[in-house]
């Protein structure tokens, strides 16, 4: 044993000199008194100089925000979002310079026109008959209790979804956007990026999840660190005891008309509505024909058995899985999600695989199966790729599959260097290098 090892072995045994126990209370009292004493005033002159400078800066920011100067908007965006609480319980935050017009603020019909800038909408879950509409020069969004941002850029609009699920239509093409997805100004779907209000939106979405009232019949919420896909949140967003469910295809004729006229008059226009809402004139469904929207409305009303029956009859596997989850049958839910992952519909494949992976890891503890599903959800054609890679990293780490975790972490960092799970990916690579 060399001197270093002997010193290291001997040093911890050497206790500090004995301290008189009778002195301890005195030491504590002296510390508390000293801590409570007012701190000496320092930096008085710099403070006197800085105060008017700060005041002038604040005035400048307000003036620039009011003038709507686009050149300074980006710089100030992340620093000073302006928040507004509506008496209806909705919450809106905007970037400085955003032009927002509250056309109608009644409880039944909230209409907001956004002509420039970015706004975050945290919409209170709507009761039957209520609607919340956001209009921009090229887009119209109708929501049922969700958190999303709308950014009006030069010539086009981007939509980013932080909670709930949104159906967006641009130029006749429909996109189902789930949590963590965005529809860019060029019409390309991707994971969330470059949102000036992104941090705020994530905070609102998390706060909403945290404060949602517990409902025993509700599908158990994931304990995973990533957001639970919207299908399982739908029950939370709807009123507790809705009236008998009307057929969604004839539920809101006024809005359907609005959207239709918008789409036909301007092809470049886009519309956004929550997933499951009946398609306006383009929909082939009739009032008597069961639709996915009908099944989702049943889920929202927490009529899981009926929703499940309807989903099974029509092979809507994701909805079937959601219903099973609501009934607490996680094994059946994974089976249904797995069936969705095997279906010919691309959207269902990705979301089904992701949900199956998440549920397998989170509820069933089957990490091997979870990894297998996560791999499918991480397909390059899937919009769920980022979350699936994040899931793969977490599950592989938990399962001790270092190679898989390292590979997924490298892929993640290569494609999403600033993504939500970048820190976890880096930590995985660091741990691998220094086991």
């Amino acid at each position: 044993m060399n001197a270093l090892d002997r010193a290291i072995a001997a040093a911890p045994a050497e206790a500090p000199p004995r301290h008189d126990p009778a002195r301890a209370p005195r030491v504590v009292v002296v510390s508390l008194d000293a801590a409570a004493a007012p701190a000496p005033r320092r930096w008085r002159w710099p403070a006197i100089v800085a105060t008017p400078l700060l005041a002038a800066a604040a005035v400048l920011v307000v003036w620039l925000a009011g003038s709507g100067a686009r050149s300074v908007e980006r710089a100030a965006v992340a620093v000073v979002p302006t928040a507004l609480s509506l008496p209806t319980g909705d919450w809106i935050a905007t970037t400085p310079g955003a032009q927002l017009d509250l056309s109608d603020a009644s409880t039944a019909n909230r209409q907001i026109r956004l002509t420039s800038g970015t706004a975050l909408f945290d919409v209170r879950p709507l009761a039957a008959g209520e609607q919340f509409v956001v209009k921009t020069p090229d887009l119209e969004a109708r929501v049922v209790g969700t958190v999303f941002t709308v950014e009006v850029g030069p010539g086009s609009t981007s939509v980013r979804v932080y909670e709930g699920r949104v159906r967006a239509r641009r130029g006749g093409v429909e996109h189902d956007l789930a949590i963590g997805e965005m529809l860019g100004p060029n019409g390309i779907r991707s994971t969330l990026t470059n949102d000036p209000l992104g941090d705020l939106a994530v905070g609102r979405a998390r706060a909403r999840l945290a404060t949602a009232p517990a409902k025993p019949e509700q599908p158990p919420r994931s304990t995973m660190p990533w957001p639970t896909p919207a299908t399982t949140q739908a029950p939370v967003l709807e009123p507790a005891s809705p009236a008998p469910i009307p057929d969604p295809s004839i539920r809101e004729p006024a809005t359907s008309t609005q959207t239709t006229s918008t789409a036909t008059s301007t092809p470049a226009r886009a519309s956004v509505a929550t997933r499951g809402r009946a398609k306006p004139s383009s929909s082939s469904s009739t009032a008597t024909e069961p639709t996915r929207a009908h099944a989702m409305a049943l889920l929202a009303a927490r009529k899981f058995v009926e929703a499940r029956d309807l989903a099974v009859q029509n092979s809507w596997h994701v909805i079937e899985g959601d219903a099973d989850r609501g009934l607490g049958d996680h094994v059946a839910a994974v089976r249904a999600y797995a069936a969705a992952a095997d279906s010919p519909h691309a959207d269902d494949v990705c979301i089904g695989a992701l949900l199956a992976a998440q549920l397998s890891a989170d509820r069933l503890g089957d990490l091997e199966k979870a990894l297998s599903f996560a791999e499918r959800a991480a397909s390059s054609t899937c919009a769920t790729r980022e979350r699936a890679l994040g899931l793969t990293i977490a599950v592989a780490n938990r399962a001790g599959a270092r190679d898989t975790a390292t590979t997924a972490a490298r892929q993640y960092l290569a494609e999403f260097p600033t993504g939500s799970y970048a820190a976890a990916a880096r930590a995985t690579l660091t741990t691998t290098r220094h086991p």
Partner: protein
Amino acid sequence: MKLLSFMHRPVPPVEPDVLAALLPKVRRWVHRILGPNSALDDVAQDALIEIAKALPAFRGDSAVDTFAYRITIRVATKALRRRRDEIPLELVPPQADHIDPESQLAHRELMRALYRALDELPTRLRLTFVLCELEGMTPTEASVVLNEGAATVRSRLRRARESVTEKLRADHRLAWLEGVRS
């Protein structure tokens, strides 16, 4: 008005029991960082004052011990910088009475040599060495206290060990004592 009331909300008082429980730990941490030193109780008192000031703002982001350890490190580091110019290294005899005089002498010389070697290390290397080798923390745990990356801590620990080994090997008094004992 809400903002104003938030700004003027009463600061929760610090419980004396919390400080009393931390006192022995703070003394031990200071002792480990500074080594045997007559300024131990003064530095521990300073650290406790700083902890009492900071506790009302403690948000529970970490364990209280980690929070207190960070503050103690900050205060002890200041004391280290002051002491390097002012106070010569002082050795306090070990507490154990059952060790024979020869072993006591060897132990004192070993500790003296160790802390003299640590005195020559840059502060960050010294803190890393103390936390990992004397306090028995893993590099990951030490990285939390030091607010550094685990890889950085590992690298510093390696450099600190190499440096201390060299200095102990070059310590002629320790070498002489080793020769006498063998």
